[in-house]
């Protein structure tokens, strides 16, 4: 489909969902206490935005995600490349990482608070553990799956090992690293909401849990809308970055990489 057409084609379903969301609670078919109508949530969003509260909470969550995700990426990228290239080292560390990864972020909360106290630090820690292990394993897989012949090619062109790593391995791995970063960012965003449900004074997760305890369902839903929208926006941002740096990737044809 041509450019604008494929954007429009998703709209009717979206609009229908919004209409249903509005009509069902208002007509009483759905208890409005459980599901406030769409317009009420929209109003609440507007109210929160105007009072500055929403921006404050968004800012807090975004800050934590940036720190946590940043730390996770700073660890996962170099370590992932290293483990991907050094098989022996990888075998030694793989079980440890493999055991840590399935521990979901909420499970880390009690420990995080015990070690780091309250405020930003435990939240950043939880985000870090929520995304680092997954990104690490993904980058390792990418590095292990990289065509070794590129390194060989660079060596026969006279590159030193250091040059080969910097000029060949890193650019070659950039596509899979970017993919892992996008996945990691998504995980980070989910982790921050969970992490903010305890011992912080601002953030979208905090806003939603407080709203729940005060039975303000429309605020809870407004929070979910914002969480969804911000999560989507963050992903698009990374996608843009990916396109900018990896313009050459999309056109890679299979026979470039396979032996004849």
């Amino acid at each position, binding site marked *: 489909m041509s450019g604008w057409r494929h954007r429009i084609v998703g709209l009717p379903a979206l609009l229908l969902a919004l209409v249903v969301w509005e009509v069902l609670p208002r007509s009483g078919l759905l*208890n409005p206490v459980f599901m406030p109508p769409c317009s009420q949530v929209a109003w609440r969003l507007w109210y929160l935005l105007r009072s500055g509260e929403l921006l404050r909470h968004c800012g807090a969550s975004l800050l934590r995600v940036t720190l946590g995700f940043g730390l996770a990426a700073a660890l996962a990228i170099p370590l992932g490349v290293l483990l991907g290239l050094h098989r022996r080292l990888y075998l030694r560390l793989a079980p440890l990482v493999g055991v840590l990864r399935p521990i979901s972020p909420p499970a880390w909360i009690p420990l995080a608070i015990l070690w780091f106290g309250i405020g930003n630090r435990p939240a950043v820690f939880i985000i870090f553990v929520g995304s680092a292990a997954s990104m690490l394993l993904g980058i390792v897989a990418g590095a292990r799956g990289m065509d070794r012949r590129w390194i060989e090619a660079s060596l026969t062109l006279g590159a030193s090992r250091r040059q080969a790593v910097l000029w060949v391995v890193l650019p070659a791995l950039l596509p899979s690293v970017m993919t892992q970063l996008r996945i990691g960012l998504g995980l980070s965003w989910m982790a921050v909401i969970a992490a903010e449900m305890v*011992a912080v*004074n601002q953030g979208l997760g905090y806003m939603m849990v407080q709203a729940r305890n*005060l039975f303000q369902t429309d605020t809870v839903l407004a929070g979910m809308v914002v969480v969804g929208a911000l999560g989507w926006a963050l992903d698009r941002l990374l996608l843009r970055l990916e396109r900018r740096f990896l313009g050459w990737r999309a056109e890679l044809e299979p026979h470039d990489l396979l032996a004849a």
Partner: protein
Amino acid sequence: MSKRTAFRLLLAALILVTGALGCARDEPQIAMGVRTANDHAPFYLADKLGYYQDEGLDVAVHLVPSNTEIIEAVQRGDLQAGAVPITTAIAAISAGVQIKIVAMTGRAGDGLLVRSDSGIETLADLRGRRVATIRGSILDVPLRVALQDAGLDPERDVTMIYFTKLGDMIQALETGQVDAASNTEPFMTQVERDGWGEILCYYSASWPDHPCCVVFVSESLRSERPDDVVALMRGHLRAVAYAQDHPHETAEAIVEYLEAFDVPLVEASLDEHKMRIDAEITPQEVERMAGLMHEFGLIERLPRADELLDTSLLRRAQP
């Protein structure tokens, strides 16, 4: 599949979902949700000693982990009555939940804990310090009143750190992450007994005998079966009277239902200087609490007294 079939399936799914959300369920006469706390002792006692049965009622007493869950269960229709802190009930009614407060169950029993080595001796010493509390709860409103009484502005002169669980606050106090923790009995007495902390004050010092937990019923129960509610109240009154006269047996019941603490500790925490089990409730104190919540920005809408409270059923239950 064809578009028509798909549309029909979607419609059926939609109907199923809304039906499931709305329909009534099969239940005992009254399903009641209570917490694990000292001032919910009347319910443990009534359940254990059969007071509801004596009134011809089949009441299922459910121990629920959190106040919010009790309200949510009532909204769903899984419960028809419950006991929660007055602040929870007010917040729910303000937000449009169809319930009404019908009686009290406990008063006071809340206060501030500090570490023994902290050097904090009075409320005024909390200036510039970090205080742990649960926002909008019974551990929050009387705390603010107490702080104001001591000449402090709760928003500016102290840093409020909001938690969601009692245990987390105690841990934060113990590890030094906060300087004071708002809490309730029997935790307060336990911390003192453990030695590392002490009770700075009870909120009843600035608001004597303040309401703590209340009994509420759903609007549908109240309007459709008022006689059952009166019978419930009769059982409640009996249990309250028993608790007031038998602290030892009450402590035993609490330990049994909470599956925690020990009888001597709980009995000590039931001391009348700390808290009081009571069924009486006045419109004035309910209005005062609601007014304070509204003033502190914890609720958006200030409900009228008659929206919040109906004591007529309790009156009818009294001899």
